């Protein structure tokens, strides 16, 4: 990890009609970090991801990636600048094979000049990396939930992102698979990818993140290392309501 700031978000807000889904959120992520975004269900985590990847354009605030302002850029532009993401609800292209799904992503990602055969090679590599090596030519509908999550991850990696956004990729995995996934995330970081993830599985969050950002009701309520966040009374309250005392130490 170094001190170079890869992503900095300033005063980010998003309103739908009158409702504020995300309100005045600011944070930054350094190159090579693994940062988790947590918060109760419906706190606005996925909205933050949608803003970062350009799916929504923010009502206010700026997003800066690697020194470039990407606020309000459209999703394909943001992707070409170096943001890859997965979707919480898996959305593979149903009529493409696993390999074709990943090739598509390779072809048009951050380095879009590569040839078809190069893209195919890369996709085959990625298939192996995420553990889909033997499922290359099947269709996504024949895969289980974890299998489809692997497609999501491989597709997000195929764009060769500087910043990888993972939206709940570990939920629903078996313990062995979760460990594999954690190893995968660590190895990605070692290769230089910065990872920003939304997770529900608290043990995973605490296990791999360098830092944790907590949102609640669309606002950032805490940020810091695992231990700092876990002892923050605001966080405990957000998660547990009024009956918080007995679980204070349990988070890490």
């Amino acid at each position: 990890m170094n001190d170079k700031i890869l992503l900095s978000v300033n005063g980010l807000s998003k309103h739908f009609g009158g409702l504020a889904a995300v309100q005045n959120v600011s944070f930054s992520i350094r190159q090579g970090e693994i940062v988790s975004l947590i918060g109760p269900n419906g706190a606005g985590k996925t909205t933050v991801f949608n803003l970062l990847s350009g799916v929504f354009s923010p009502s206010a605030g700026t997003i800066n990636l690697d020194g470039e302002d990407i606020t309000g850029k459209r999703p394909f532009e943001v992707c070409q600048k170096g943001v890859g993401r997965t979707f919480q609800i898996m959305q593979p292209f149903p009529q493409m094979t696993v390999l074709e799904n990943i090739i598509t992503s390779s072809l048009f990602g951050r380095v879009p000049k590569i040839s078809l055969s190069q893209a195919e090679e890369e996709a085959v590599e990625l298939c192996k990396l995420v553990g889909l090596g033997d499922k290359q030519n099947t269709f996504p509908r024949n895969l289980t939930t974890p299998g489809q999550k692997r497609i999501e991850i491989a597709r997000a990696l195929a764009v060769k992102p500087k910043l990888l956004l993972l939206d709940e990729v570990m939920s629903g995995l078996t313990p062995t698979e979760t460990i594999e996934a954690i190893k995968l995330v660590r190895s990605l970081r070692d290769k230089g990818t910065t990872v920003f993830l939304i997770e529900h599985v608290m043990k995973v969050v605490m296990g791999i993140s360098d830092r944790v950002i907590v949102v609640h009701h669309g606002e950032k309520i805490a940020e810091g290392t695992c231990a700092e966040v876990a002892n923050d009374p605001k966080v405990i309250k957000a998660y547990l309501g009024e009956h918080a005392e007995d679980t204070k130490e349990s988070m890490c």
Partner: protein
Amino acid sequence: MLELKWIDVYYGNIQALWDVSLSVKEGEVIVIVGSNGAGKSTILRTISGMNKIKKGSIEFGGQRIDLLRADEIVRLGVSMVPEGRELFPRLSVRENLELGAAYIDRAYSRRTETLQWIYSLFPILHERGSQLAGTLSGGEQQMVAIGRALMSRPRLLMFDEPSLGLAPLMVDEVFKTVTKVSQEGVTILLVEQNVRQSLKMAHRAYVLENGRMVTKQSIDVDPEKCILCGECVEICPVSAIDMTVNGQPENPGRDLGRRVSRKSQ
């Protein structure tokens, strides 16, 4: 009262539930817990007739209901408070509530009485009666959704993540309401991620993971201590607990089963 036997459910070609069985007795509060995407909501949607089963059977009050349409199932007395509330946003609060009884004959004749009951449960809805449902806060919308379901005079009321996106105080409020409704004699089937609080009011619980029941039977609930891991904040999927507690168990379900049985001894 309600009995699911070995049901399989598919979304298109994708299987969402495998061999799920559960039973709910009259007057109980039952919770289904499990992580995101485990298929909890699918179970409720299937009971209410929104999804069809490929295999197995669903009985309610001794009658097969798995072949009925959703509206027929509501008429039999099974109502649902859906995830995301699903109100009629451009109708007023009162209209939303009234619609809950409008298409169910046995509820329609008692609608004024039921409405008074709901207003006594949620006085705020009385105040907001003429406001458009879409303009309410999340917690108020949740109350309208519960109220609308109650208007149909259900025998079994199902809640799909009622605490979703609510402030802590509001969550408490919602759970208190669920308890109140239960005390009024309505049987309750609840799906939640907020394990700790939901287990506090439940009689029994089922744990679902990846579309399968982790244990064949329901687990008994110790209200003082979350039986699943005793230390988590939200639901820790069994996988995550076992991973850190026991290293790499080959079968998390069996492991949990052991722990549960130990508890009940």
